[in-house]
């Protein structure tokens, strides 16, 4: 996944990164512990040149149902809350980009997973593509899924 987004160099072959903008949310959340959830998300939105107005950030946090923690510092948030704040970045996206998500459902509860799946569904509707890794089975009704099973070394639709 790191190779896919361009963080690591491929051992063989080439990846054309100019073809699509990518949004990568890795295993580490990239949230600064000393900032509030709102500030941390706003920094990431600003860094990536996305909409970073205060009310847009609030709306994104609300979408992931962590608006009540938005003024608390990231240090005081639980793993699940941190994951939600990190994933709130997806709610700021409105382009048909390629999302690369490394274990997005990690530390999320069932409600959190549903919200993320809804965001993914919305993204697919605007012709976006998502590559994600997960050890939790999930389903997205009405969308073509390509499953790569790394243990069994198989790919099936």
């Amino acid at each position, binding site marked *: 996944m790191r190779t896919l987004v361009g963080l690591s160099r491929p051992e063989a072959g080439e990846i054309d990164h100019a073809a699509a903008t990518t949004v990568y949310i890795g*295993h580490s959340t990239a949230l600064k512990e*000393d900032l509030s959830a709102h500030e941390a998300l706003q*920094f990431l939105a600003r*860094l990536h*040149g996305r909409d970073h107005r205060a009310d847009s950030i609030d709306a994104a946090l609300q979408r992931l149902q962590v608006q009540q923690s938005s003024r608390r510092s990231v240090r005081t948030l639980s793993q699940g809350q941190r994951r939600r704040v990190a994933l709130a970045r997806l709610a700021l996206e409105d382009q048909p980009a390629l999302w690369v998500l490394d274990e997005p459902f990690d530390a999320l509860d069932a409600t959190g997973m549903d919200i993320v799946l809804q965001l993914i569904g919305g993204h697919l509707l605007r012709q976006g593509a998502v590559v994600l890794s997960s050890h939790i089975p999930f389903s997205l009704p009405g969308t073509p899924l390509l499953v790569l099973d790394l243990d069994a070394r198989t790919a099936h639709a």
Partner: protein
Amino acid sequence: MLDSSFALILLRDLRLAARRRIEVLLPLVFFLVASSLFPFGVGPEPQTLREIAPGIVWVCALLSAMLSLTSLYGGDHADGTLEQMLLSRRSLTLLAGGKALAHWLLTGLPLLLLAPLLGLLFGMSSASIGVLTLGLLLGTPILSLLGGIGAALTLGLRNGGVLVLLLVLPLCIPVLIFGAGAVTAAEAGLPVQGHLSLLAALLLLCLLGAPLATAAALKISVD
């Protein structure tokens, strides 16, 4: 303005520092304590102290600038922010420049304010203190810029903290020579312009080259 890569990182780092004031004060306290140890070690002879004062202040400034280097990119590397910086379509060179300026504002600038105080403590003349401060003004940004390269190169290594010292300290020797040399020349009544010009030239060179080198080193470290 707020959205330029340079200002974005600069303001974020300053805001983070404001939330961790104690950590910001530590290098300064180190600077004060380390330099005030010398009179105990060398003896309270005013003449000797006056002679070695420029060297002491410069060496302690150098070491205290090195203290905070490991955390310069370490935090961003550990929590994944660095990956996001690399992935954003922003200039990594400008981001590195912003980081270096933030580091200087937090470690170099306070030293400039403390140095005259130490100069008085060691009985330096006011003219020498002026030259010392001017030298530090030109020299401490070089330490932050070179330190950035070292910090970026040693990211993710187990003994990064020590390694960064071994990498950066030798590079800082010219700064030390010309910085302390300027004060010694001032004390001897010789012109100091040559020393300060060389420091300024080093600063310009680092301003142009160090952010580029840091950006390249960051890319390698994250790979």
